């Protein structure tokens, strides 16, 4: 019952708020924060009580939810970040926003507690659709709506993998589509299911090659980014891979593929983050990179390490996005150069951001230093090359986090055009999240890292941050504009557009013309042929009768015309005609009268 309530409360309140719309705008913040509190309490309860529930949905395919160790961590993380985001947004948004956010979080709660494919797939897709509505929240701006569309379509493309996995699971012999059955099904179908799940998870987590949608997702309000990038949506992909880790290792190949995609994404998107000039784009690329570590952990078999990384990153990244949101509303910009000195202007925000950035950089003893080292250690267990790539990616996070930190804290004498007060409600969640970003790592520990690994990564992080400090000294920003390809997220968006979208649209247009001309044309030709046959039959069969009648009519008409001609109305013509007629008559009498 507690578990049903945990998922039903946010969903039902969310739907009610979204349907009520404007009418509920004034009440909405209070209702939402109240709901958030209830959800947090229920999540804590569920994490301790570990309930499991099930309800029939389809023919012998139930909806099952349960809270185990992994899910317990997830529900609490989701509820906590949700609470922070709700409080932060309370001073700015109305009913539609809170409704969608609660629905979104409710879908994530179902995702992380689902024990059957049906429950997982339903919540997974609802989360994608809600993210569309949240990214395109300011719907009068078509670009933002289009960005939401990119997010939804990209993730749905990957979601097809889940449909495939569900079918494969049933065909492979799992009667109830339980996720726990996955490693045990027939080996051919098991590979299909693993492939489907991996694609779906990589898409949701914005791993390569799907990363571009996360860049577009920045069009949404900042609190949405804070939620989407930390404990929900992108985290869902990583969570799913951690959840099905036994399946990945059972197939053999899937674990290797997942580990490498995670490691490469961590490195490459880390490099993308280093050169971004837009603070939110920098944070977005860093999300891909950090989630890459979680994916790497799932592939390398480090489920605990990956979970720790997920939680530490959730606290850190939601904090950083909320800070970016504060500056965006207060100062009207997210350009890192224009934001120079913003950290000093708003100390609560600036210090919180600083702690978050240092945690993101992997500086000890903050949380991500612990969790990332645990991940790297599990990578080292499976392959040295994987470890080396992971270490390089860790260095990248030092560089981008350091660069953002120093640009925001560097002294600046420039005046901001607009400068607004930051509401208290927007400040409160920040120190709490900063505390989480700082200390959560201790809870998870270093995993089975050896001492030199931890020292190496700490040294690397410090060197990278130092380099970032040098690169941004004075008015300089050494990396700015250095790599157009990296700045543009490897042009992945354009590639997907040209390679897939444009082709599909062209094919659709061609098929539509084919449909009009050939398919329907065939029908028209057939009916035309029918008409022609009828005409031919008509002409041949009815020829004699018809022509005869026409001939008679024509002759009669001609005679009539001839008969009209003498009637001119002039007397002398009539006399002449009478004379001729009498003469003819006389001649006839003379000729035939004798007989």
């Amino acid at each position: 019952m507690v578990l049903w309530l945990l998922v039903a409360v946010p969903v039902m309140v969310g739907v009610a708020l979204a349907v009520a719309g404007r009418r509920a705008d004034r009440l909405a913040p209070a209702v939402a924060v109240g709901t958030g509190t209830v959800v947090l309490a229920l999540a804590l309860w569920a994490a301790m009580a570990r309930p499991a529930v099930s309800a029939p949905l389809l023919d012998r395919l139930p909806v099952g939810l349960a809270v185990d160790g992994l899910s317990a961590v997830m529900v609490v993380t989701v509820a906590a970040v949700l609470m922070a985001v709700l409080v932060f947004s309370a001073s700015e948004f109305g009913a539609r926003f809170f409704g969608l956010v609660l629905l979104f979080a409710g879908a994530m709660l179902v995702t992380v507690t689902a024990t059957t494919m049906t429950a997982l797939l339903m919540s997974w897709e609802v989360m994608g659709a809600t993210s569309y509505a949240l990214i395109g929240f300011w719907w009068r701006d078509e670009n933002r709506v289009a960005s939401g569309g990119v997010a939804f379509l990209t993730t749905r493309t990957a979601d097809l993998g889940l449909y495939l996995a569900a079918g494969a699971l049933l065909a492979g012999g799992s009667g109830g589509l339980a996720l726990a059955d996955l490693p045990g099904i027939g080996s051919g179908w098991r590979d299909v299911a693993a492939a489907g799940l991996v694609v779906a998870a990589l898409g949701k987590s914005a791993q390569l090659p799907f990363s571009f949608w996360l860049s577009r997702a920045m069009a949404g309000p900042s609190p949405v980014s804070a939620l989407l990038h930390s404990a929900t949506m992108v985290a869902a992909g990583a969570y799913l891979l951690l959840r099905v880790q036994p399946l990945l290792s059972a197939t053999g190949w899937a674990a290797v593929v997942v580990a490498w995609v995670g490691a490469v994404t961590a490195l490459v998107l880390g490099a993308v983050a280093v050169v971004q000039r837009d603070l939110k784009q920098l944070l977005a690329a860093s999300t891909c990179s950090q989630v890459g570590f979680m994916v790497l952990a799932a592939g390398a078999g480090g489920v605990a390490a990956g979970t720790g990384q997920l939680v530490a990153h959730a606290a850190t990244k939601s904090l950083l996005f909320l800070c970016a949101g504060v500056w965006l509303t207060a100062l009207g910009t997210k350009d890192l150069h224009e934001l120079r000195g913003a950290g000093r202007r708003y100390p609560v925000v600036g210090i919180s951001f600083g702690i978050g950035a240092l945690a993101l950089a992997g500086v000890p003893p903050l949380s991500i230093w612990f969790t990332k080292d645990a991940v790297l250690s599990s990578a080292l267990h499976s392959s040295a090359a994987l470890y080396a790539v992971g270490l390089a990616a860790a260095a990248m996070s030092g560089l981008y986090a350091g660069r953002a930190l120093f640009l925001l804290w560097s002294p600046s004498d420039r005046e901001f055009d607009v400068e607004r007060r930051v509401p208290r409600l927007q400040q409160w969640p920040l120190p709490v999240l900063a505390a989480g970003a700082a200390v959560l790592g201790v809870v998870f520990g270093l995993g089975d890292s050896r001492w030199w690994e931890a020292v190496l990564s700490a040294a690397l992080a410090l060197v990278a941050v130092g380099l970032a400090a040098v690169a941004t000294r004075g008015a300089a920003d050494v990396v700015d504009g250095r790599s157009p390809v990296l700045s543009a997220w490897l042009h992945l968006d354009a590639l997907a557009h040209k390679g897939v979208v444009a082709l599909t649209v062209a094919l659709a247009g061609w098929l539509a013309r084919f449909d009009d001309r050939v398919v329907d044309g065939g029908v028209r030709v057939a009916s035309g042929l029918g008409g022609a046959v009828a005409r031919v039959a008509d002409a041949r069969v009815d020829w004699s009768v018809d022509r005869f009648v026409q001939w008679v009519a024509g002759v009669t008409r001609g005679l009539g015309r001839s008969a009209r001609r003498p009637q001119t109305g002039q007397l002398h013509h009539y006399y002449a005609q009478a004379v001729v007629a009498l003469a003819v008559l006389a001649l006839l009498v003379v000729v035939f009268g004798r007989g």
Partner: protein
Amino acid sequence: MDVLSIVVFLPVAVAAALLASPRIGDRVARWTWIVASAVDLLLVVVLWIGYQPGESGFAYEVDRRWIPSVDSGYHVGVDGLSLPLVALTAVLFLACAVYSARETRRVRSYAALFLFLETVCLGLFVSLDLILFFVFFDLSIVGMYFVIAGWGHRDAARAALKFFLYTFLGSLALLLGFIGLYLAASPHTFDIVELVRQDPLAGKGAMAALVLAALGVGLAIKTPTIPFHTWLPPAHTEAPAAGSAILAGVLLKMGTYGFVRIAMPALPDAWRRYAMVFVVVGVVSVVYGALVALAQRDFKRMIAYTSVNHMGYVILAVGAAGLITSSETQARDLAVTGAVTQMVSHGLITGALFLLAGALYDRGGSYEMAAYSGLAAQAPRFAGLTGLAAFASLGLPGFSGFIAEFQIFTGSLGGAPVSTAVAFLGILITAALFLRAVQQLLMGQFRSPNGPFPDLTAPEAASITPLIVLAVVVGLFPRFLLDVIEPASRVVTSVLGG
């Protein structure tokens, strides 16, 4: 008179009364129509509550002598395949009655025509006799012809004629198949239950193939599937909104219903042998229909093509059910149940979409999507319902479409892996086209061809909202529906054997 016949013939009785009283005004005619449809829906609800199938598998069964010389009787009854469609018919006709409150052209005849069509549709779904089925099948074409020709847009006469001739041709093929079944049966009969029991064409390869081909073509034209679908877009584009809703929501189901009611169980061997043909036709309809819909610029034409896509899933599922071996009963049952669920779901969602398209046309005088923008600003109710209907139609979980398509996909994958995987693309392409439509029509800066865009009126909202609500109820709590369908699907799959 038995209760099922009352449900079927009540509307046409009211229609006759309406036609017989030329004095009554539009207002009275409108209300008579609404009340008659509402009472009929109420009776259907009563039927549903009291639904208790007997040993034959049917409830409310009646079998009376009709044309004894060819052993064709007035044999009617409902089971899990037909009851949901009967309910869908009653719901959609009531929605159309309420929606048409603003219709001002020859209201009395319009109401009578729709009531006549309601009887025809209900009659078809409860028919257990081929001749009875055929009579209703043909009358539906006649009724819809007059709806399109009499109350349609500019080019309605042409579209109506095309619709009539094309689907009439289909019904002739169907009749040929029925006669084939009749002749093969011994003793000769048109009774569906008896034909299914006899399985008259078992082991007669060529004859069975011919009869299946005749039935297949006849039903495929009505459904419609590729390549018999080209009557659909013009008929929809020119039909009045309520006519489109009934055409897509109910009349198309006659084709797909014919597959599960007649073609599959009466010709199980031939069905299994040629199942792959249906799978391929289904998959091509899914992908082709979605792609052509993606290329449309006209909102109503686009929805019309998505019907080809959605009906394609049904054909895929019934085809795949023929490929799956009988040891995989769960997958097979899922596919057939999914197919029936999809019929109900498509009726609700596409019915709502066509009514919304009608509201759009009433206000802007155009179906051209590019002529509109940002309608959410002036018409939030219209925008909300259109958005929900669009997401329902693209198969989002939480709506009925997902329940249907998920069952179809999950059930079919084992039997037809490649085809089913290709069919997945359908839900992606429909997602793309509906997102584009929503973005173009509802989002951005406000623009509409006729200036202001007033929000939905009370009758419009009252007719469309229940359809969406029902789609959500089926999407979240489908048991009440599936408990009815599943036993009937099991009967179909067990008859299929193999």
